[in-house]
């Protein structure tokens, strides 16, 4: 167990930029933009109001006359930022997983790591854990922190304009409920993420060069072949969509989004594609362990 913790720490040391800096910098830039927008609106908003209504009046109208709707609008605004962090996660994970078992073979440092009392299975497992759990948890933490910041910013803005902010607090309790749901949905997320993690680690462990091309072209060509078969009685186009969809979803998936209700849990769980994909992902991980073992058994 402690070996696994050290292996995860090792991954963090190597990938601080993707696992920490990129999500934090994104949140920081967005927070700065949001703050500047609010300040700008406070300064120029009253004069720019077309109907002559000040921002203050608009806020009062919105919050005091329909508090429920105002809270819902804030909650929706909060949800829309989730997409940004999902894209960041997908990009970071794609490049992390592709390099995870390839880069250290290319720079020969795999020989250093193989001199440790660590099995190939443990090595592959540590990298899979980063993809399945660590990065999604980082995404949740950063998303949650950024949303909390937006709520505070809204409350302060409203209060500064002399309008009671309390009706908006409903949006906050919604955030808390989502965070709880995310924990409950963690196992489903792992099933969803397995196809992408398994496939990319397999390519990373197996490819002698250009893992990027293998990882992208093989599924694309497979999907194209399926599309050509359309009309032969097979639901080929559906299968092609399923193949690419499952791989993509694995990178974007996060227990947080499952909790938002955008994906209904029972529909996700009863789709056969989920289970086939998860099994394929586990097979990919087994293949990655095998390829890792063989990759150190070469004549050079």
């Amino acid at each position, binding site marked *: 167990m402690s*070996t696994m913790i050290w292996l995860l720490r090792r991954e963090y040391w*190597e990938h601080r930029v993707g696992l920490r800096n990129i999500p934090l910098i994104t949140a920081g830039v967005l927070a700065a933009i949001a703050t500047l927008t609010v300040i700008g609106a406070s300064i120029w908003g009253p004069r720019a109001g077309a109907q002559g209504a000040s921002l203050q009046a608009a806020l009062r109208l919105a919050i005091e006359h329909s508090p429920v709707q105002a809270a819902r609008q804030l909650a929706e605004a909060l949800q829309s930022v989730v997409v940004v962090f999902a894209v960041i996660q997908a990009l970071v994970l794609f490049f992390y997983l592709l390099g995870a078992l390839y880069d250290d073979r290319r720079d020969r*440092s795999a020989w250093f790591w*193989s*001199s*440790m*009392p*660590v099995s190939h299975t443990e090595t592959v497992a540590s990298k899979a854990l980063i993809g399945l759990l660590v990065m999604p948890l980082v995404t949740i933490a950063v998303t949650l922190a950024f949303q909390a910041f937006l709520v505070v910013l809204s409350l302060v803005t409203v209060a500064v304009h002399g309008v009671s902010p309390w009706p908006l607090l409903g949006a906050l309790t919604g955030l808390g409920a989502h965070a709880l749901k995310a924990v409950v949905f963690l196992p489903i997320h792992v099933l969803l993420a397995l196809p992408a993690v398994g496939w990319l680690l397999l390519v990373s462990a197996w490819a002698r060069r250009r893992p990027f091309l293998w990882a992208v072209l093989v599924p694309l060509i497979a999907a194209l072949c399926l599309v050509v078969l359309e009309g032969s009685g097979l639901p080929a186009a559906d299968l092609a969509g399923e193949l690419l969809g499952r791989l993509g979803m694995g990178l974007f998936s996060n227990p947080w989004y499952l909790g938002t209700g955008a994906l209904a849990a029972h529909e996700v769980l009863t789709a056969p594609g989920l289970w086939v994909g998860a099994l394929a992902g586990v097979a990919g991980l087994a293949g990655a362990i095998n390829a890792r073992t063989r990759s150190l058994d*070469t*004549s050079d």
Partner: protein
Amino acid sequence: MNSAIRAERLVKRYKNQVALQDVNLDVPMGRIVGLIGPNGAGKTTLIKSILGLTDVEGDLAVLGRAPRRDRTALMHEVSYIADVAVLPRWLRAGEAAAFMAGVHPRFSMERFRALLERTSVRESMRVRELSKGMAAQLHLALAMAVDARLLVLDEPTLGLDILYRKAFYEALLNDYATPDRTILLATHQVEEVENLLSDLVFIKSGKVILSSSMDEVAERYHEVLVGPGQRDAARSLGPLRERSVFGKSVFLFDGVPSSELASLGEVRRPGVADLFVALMGDAA
């Protein structure tokens, strides 16, 4: 179990070449073994089999274990330096040590710090900031901080200048060699390690062509400086090799007693390099 490494009839084939052919080897505990051969002779393949990184045919026991099957358990007792350029460039010296302290039960942080203090490497430095020589010092400090029963070094000084190489081997001999540790050192730079070794293994085209202790080598092989008049007499005794140095002929004999040779000229112990050249033939 007093063999550190026992190999019987090891065979390793790659797709288009045979890397090991019928290798037999018995290394007792506590020896310092030089595994010497030209590039491509099979040194690295033999080392990879000993570390369980490659599949081989034949029987192989390292510290009493089957390396391929028990690799993780075996690596608890083994320290290994592949060559100078395998430390990941992003890694900090302190992180490398912390990681090893975490996963390696025989790694000692105090020992590592004491070893590192003698070098100009600091724990906050990344490998990419180090010169080749400093990276080698760091790697050696990491490897020697492990209380290993077997230390395996594969060309550990390749590409380093002579000062580093000398310091490297001195540190190895003075600080690490003990009677209950076995050191296996693969190199093709024979002269530098000659005085370090207790045993010699010559390997050529995947075959072990000599495996004996330095004492046995001294008893078995003799070099004689022969004057011009006695060359024919020397040749009649069947020398392994003949070469000329400053007008004198130097003959290398295998298994001819020194008492018989004394009448021919000055008898001396051959250098490992000369022995290597004689036994390797054209491959050297």
